[in-house]
């Protein structure tokens, strides 16, 4: 089974290389806590789209805003 948590963290740190994946808390918000801007978020969505073929509409952006949320989101959307 795909490790969505690790995959998400990998794409996140590709976009923000200064982030140490080991220090990212499950509930840290990518914009409020990790300081991604709207262009970074779009790039993250693009990376996840490319990797998993998942089409994350804008309305769902809040559902990938933390590691915990994104892991659940990817598990349910990629599997189906």
């Amino acid at each position, binding site marked *: 089974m795909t490790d969505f948590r690790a995959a998400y963290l990998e794409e996140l740190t590709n976009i923000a290389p*200064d982030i140490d994946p080991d220090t990212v808390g499950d509930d840290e918000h990518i914009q409020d806590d990790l300081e991604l*801007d709207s*262009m970074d978020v*779009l790039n993250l*969505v*693009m990376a996840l*789209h490319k990797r998993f073929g998942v*089409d994350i*509409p*804008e309305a769902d952006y809040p559902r990938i805003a933390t590691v915990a949320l994104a892991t659940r989101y990817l598990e349910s959307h990629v599997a189906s």
Partner: protein
Amino acid sequence: MPSLGADMEAGKLVEWSVQPGDQVNRGDVVAVVETQKGAIEIEIFESGTVHELIAELGAELPVGAPLAVILAEGEAPPAEAPAAPEPVQEDMTAQSPADDITAPPPTPDIAPHAGAGPAASPAARVRAHELGLDLSAITGSGPGGVIVLADVEVAVPGPARPQARTGGTGSAVDEMRKAIAAAMTRSKQSIPHFYLSETIDVQPAMDYLAALNADRPPPERVLLGALFVRAATRAAAKIKVMNGHFTDGAFRPADRVNPGVAVALRGGGLVAPALMDAQDMTLDQTMSGMRDLVTRARAGRLRSSEMTQGTITISSLGETGAEAMTGVIFPPQVALVGIGAPHRRPWVVGDAVVPRHVVTLTLSADHRVSDGRQVARFISEFETLMSEPEAL
């Protein structure tokens, strides 16, 4: 060594992208230079053949120092390669990196051998002028005897030299902080800023984008920031007194719009590379151009033209955060468009009060060039454009 900003004194050559014998065309990247604002790709402003690479990799060179000799078609090589700055007709630095804008180069005297007195960096010239010092009386400590800012500060009689540079070996972030400090201090000391603000209903723009993006895969989605850049570009094309450079005591309007897009760098610092020729772009082209700029700004791969040929700056606080920002103009430009984060507020539409997303637009303008009436026209134009986003 081209000047890549009003306060650049020197750069370190870190990469050659060409070899002697290579054919180069105007605009080709020929070298990479490390500056306080990161690594910048240097574009050639002459077409011809690379005759000789003069500068050594790793060398820290003052602005104006020759990097290479380029021969135009049919031109004979110089009898002897210039070891020190000499008037070489076709060397890369004989022309400013900004010479293909209608406005003349921001620092036309960057070549120290241009025949205009002793060799000195632009910052040194400006500071010497401010202090009323004669450059010919100052001994230069830069390579080839070029006068740098520190030399001018040292030459100030008496105790009044608070701005002497310490030239330490700070981190990249420290260096960028210094570059920002120098440019912004120069701006506030030399540009008589004034400001006009207006809160604008952006609900039509946000609704338009939500509908547009709903049918698009992630790579084709457009951000609100691209609409702002598009609207500011079109407003700048119309209100020409906001778009151009103030150099040598005069405003020179630009005939194209290269909006500098302020990009916050992770870890601190800010760059505002120009989106070249944005006036000819569609909204989608603007968006992909911005994505490319942000990516390269973060990776430290901007080009010399993008660092010097911005004609107006757009600084947007993004989706969340403060509702307004009053920005500092980036010299030699004459205006900055500051855009706060969208906030949901009670708003009067027709005769009803309804919740709407609004942003506060704040124009910083140079009073040497424009007055409130012209800036008000810019704001009005921007607001009109944002109210009809499908036409952007």
